[in-house]
Structures are given as C-alpha cells and as structure tokens.
C-alpha cells in the first residue's frame, strides 16, 4: 500500500501567525481567547472568542487580490504558503496534474455574506460588489490555493461542520493512497467571528461566557475561534526521493455517522471512528501515547468523548494522554481539525504534549489524563486527532512518527 507522509505545515490562528509561534504558544499553554472585537459585538450576549489578532491583510495581499479573498480564503492562502515553503516544494511540470488541494470549511465566506446582507437589508442599497459570489463560495479557499500553487489535480472542499478538516485530510490521505495524487495540500480554514456568526451560535445556548474549560467539572460551553492550518501530504517514496524532511506519517483514518441526533453526540459513533482509525493504521491501543481530543468544553461532548476513548482503549487508557487545545485556540469549527493536527504533529516532532488549559476541577465523567494546564514532555510514537461534528459525523486521524 502506498504510504502518506506530512512534509510541510503552515498556519495562522489565534495562537500565532505561523507554525513556530503556534507551537510556542501551545508549549507555553497560552490562551488566544479574549474579548470579541468587531462591528456590533456589543449586541451579543457572548462576548468572547479567539480572534486572529494583529492581522493586516494588506501586508500579505494586493488590493486586487483582497477584493476576491474573504477572510477564510486569506487564512487558507497564508497557511498554504507557509506549508509549501516548509515542504520545500514547487509544483511544476507533470507533478501539477498529480497534485491537488482538499480543504475543510463550514461557514465559507460568512463575513462576505454578512457584509452584503447589511448592504441590501440594513442600508437599503440595491447594488452589491460584483465579486460577492466568488468571495463567499465555500470552495473559494481551495480554488485560490490551487491557483497560487499550480495544483491541477483533485481539488475540492469538504463541509461537515466541526469535522470538516478531518474529513478533508482523510480525503487527501485516500487520494494519495489510491494513486489519484502524489501530493495534496489539505487542512481547513474558518472565519466565522462576525456578528451573525456568533449570534447564530448564541441561539443554541452552548457557548461559554467566560472560558473554554474542556474536561473540567465546571466547564460551561464552547468558545469560537478562527484561522487555518494547511499541511502538505505526500506519497512517502515521492517525499524520500526528493529528500524532503518528513514530519510524520499519516497512518490511518476513519469516519462514521451516528445516525441518531442532529446535535447530541454519540459514544457509539465516536468509539467506532476511533477504533476504525486504529485499525486502518494497524495500531494497537497501547501504541498510542496521545489523543488530541475534540474536547469542545460542552457538558455533552467531553463526557461522551471520554467514554468513547475509554471503551476503545480499555486497559491502555492508563498510559494515555488526551488534551483539548480548544482551551487555547477556541473552536475553529470547519478549520478546527487542521489546527488541532498541529498539536498532534508537535507531539511527534517535538516530544511535547500540548495542555488542556483552564482546567480547574476534575470531573468523574472525564477521568482521563487530560494534561491539565501545563504542557508535558513525552516521547510518543503514535497519536490520534478526534473530530465529532454536529450532525453526528465523526472523523479520526492517526499519525505515526516519521518512518
């Protein structure tokens, strides 16, 4: 079977504008959550979120580009640019047709939708900018990345709410395994932090007003974030032949559907996805040292997730670390699995497990080693990254140390 490795990673997210800043923040257990700052934020009852701060689009893109790039596209392009730079890869010649991009996102150009609804509904204007459609469409990010890097093979967008990025990266893995591609840029991007984006989530009553405290007995909901992470997935022999530095092997992937409820999670569906990823990667539970949890900080997710992990890992649960980095970067919805895979990669490359910060009190329903509050040095050979979406769509990725 063709094996798939990661040869590059890039990101912009609430913890940093690139990979080194993000790893540093994760190691330091720094929070990117703060007071939301955008138009009409004072009309929200939820006032906190993890925004990408100190970001000026004009330092990265020309005016002509910016009229076409929604914020979620900008984030995707910046993450892809860094990932390709780190991979040392330029796609040209015959490789172009064997290279593609699959990104996960859920909101698409939500900011563009909001701005233009304001124009026609609130301001009563009857004319909108001509590029509203190419800005807001969900595939805008993947398409712009394909153009930026000459990726002429399989390219599309996956939307499965909070599992979008994991589903996208799973697709990339399978495209390379199957022989349809040699190189795939993959990950996800999201920029939902605008008035409508938060207002809609408020309605569900699952948002915290003060902090994201996954697994903690006093957790009281999720906190939204924004940003992107993009990885270069490459067929292993292709990567070795060009002498690329390999960060990790993408060892396995599994996806399941709960087929039960549109918002409530299911232990059974999650457990099947976790077990499936182990099976696909030919890993035993005791081989896995760390899981980057979905860990949203809601009452329902965290206890369901812990029960699913305990069910699959059995006795091996004792030696397992599981943390939720959403406590730091928030929930990036469609982009979250991609940013979280950075923590999974960091565990393998740097031997540091990112913590679950904001942890204050143990919950008997979450009685696992959640790496509370402080990062931990540990040598691990294999890791998982969980994503369990609204709609009951679950996707779990397994990574192994570079071969």
């Amino acid at each position, binding site marked *: 079977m063709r094996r798939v490795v990661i040869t590059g990673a890039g990101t912009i997210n609430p913890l940093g504008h690139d990979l080194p800043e993000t790893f540093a923040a994760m190691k330091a257990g720094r929070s990117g959550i703060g007071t939301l700052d955008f138009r009409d934020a004072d009309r929200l009852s939820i006032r906190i979120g993890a925004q990408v701060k100190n970001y000026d689009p004009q330092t990265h893109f020309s005016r*002509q580009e910016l*009229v*076409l790039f929604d914020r979620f596209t900008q984030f995707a392009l910046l993450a892809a640019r860094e990932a390709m730079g780190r991979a040392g890869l330029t796609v040209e010649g015959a490789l172009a047709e064997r290279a593609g991009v699959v990104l996960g996102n859920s909101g698409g150009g939500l900011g563009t939708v909001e701005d233009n609804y304001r124009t026609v509904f609130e301001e009563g204007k009857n*004319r909108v*900018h*001509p*590029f509203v459609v190419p800005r807001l469409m969900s595939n805008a990010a993947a398409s712009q990345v394909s153009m930026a890097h000459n990726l002429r093979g399989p390219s599309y967008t996956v939307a499965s709410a909070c599992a979008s990025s994991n589903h996208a990266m799973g697709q990339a893995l399978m495209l390379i395994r199957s022989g349809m591609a040699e190189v795939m840029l993959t990950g996800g991007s999201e920029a939902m932090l605008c008035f409508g984006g938060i207002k809609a989530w408020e309605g569900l009553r699952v948002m915290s007003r003060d902090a994201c405290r996954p697994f903690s007995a006093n957790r009281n909901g999720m906190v939204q974030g924004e940003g992107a992470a993009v990885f270069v997935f490459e067929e292993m022999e292709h990567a070795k032949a060009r002498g690329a530095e390999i960060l990790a092997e993408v060892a396995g992937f599994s996806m399941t559907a709960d087929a039960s409820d549109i918002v409530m999670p299911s232990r059974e569906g999650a457990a099947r996805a976790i077990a499936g990823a182990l099976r696909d990667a030919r890993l035993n539970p005791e081989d896995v040292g760390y899981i980057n949890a979905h860990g949203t900080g809601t009452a329902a997710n965290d206890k369901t997730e812990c029960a699913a992990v305990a069910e699959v890992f059995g006795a091996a649960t004792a030696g397992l670390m599981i943390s939720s980095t959403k406590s730091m970067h928030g929930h990036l919805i469609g982009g979250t699995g991609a940013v979280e895979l950075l923590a999974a990669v960091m565990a393998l490359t740097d031997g540091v497990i990112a913590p679950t910060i904001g942890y204050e009190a143990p919950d008997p329903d979450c009685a696992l080693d959640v790496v509370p509050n402080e990062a931990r040095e540990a040598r691990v050979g294999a890791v998982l990254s969980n994503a369990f979406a609204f709609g009951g769509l679950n996707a779990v990725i397994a990574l192994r140390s570079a071969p």
Partner: protein
Amino acid sequence: MSEDIRNRIIEIIAEQAVIEPSDVSMEQSLEDLGIDSLGLVEAIFAIEESFDISVPFNANAPEESEFDISSVGAIVEAVTGLVAAQKA
C-alpha cells in the same frame, strides 16, 4: 461636470489597471490597459457607485450591451449620457 466625469472614470480605470491616471488616454481600450473581464465588472460597479447610476451591461454579451466599452473615451461618453438621462 463632463470634466469631472472624465477624471473620475480615468481614476477608476487607472486603479483597475494599476497605473497612474496620467497614463490613461481616451483612445485606449480596456484590453490595451490589461483589464480583464473581472476588472471590467469591478470598474462598472465603481462607476455605478460613483455616479449613482445603473449601467446596462451584461458580461455574457458585452458587444450587445447598450453600454459602449470599446475605449476609455466611449465609456466617458456613455456615462455622461447616463448621468444626463438620470437628471432629466
């Protein structure tokens, strides 16, 4: 007024072509200036916003549109006509 219209249109076109307004001449076509189809619809949007007019232009069939875009001068003339019609 016609001078104002001319200057504003030159500004809009120069911005799309990423050149100085002084480098735009009346005889040039948008193609000469390197403005593609997306640049054209954005320029038309900017014209509509600037003069508060509605420009009859369909990107599917530019040559059949009532709005003459064959040169910068033709655009100035067409916009001048639309502005006058709106005031009448």
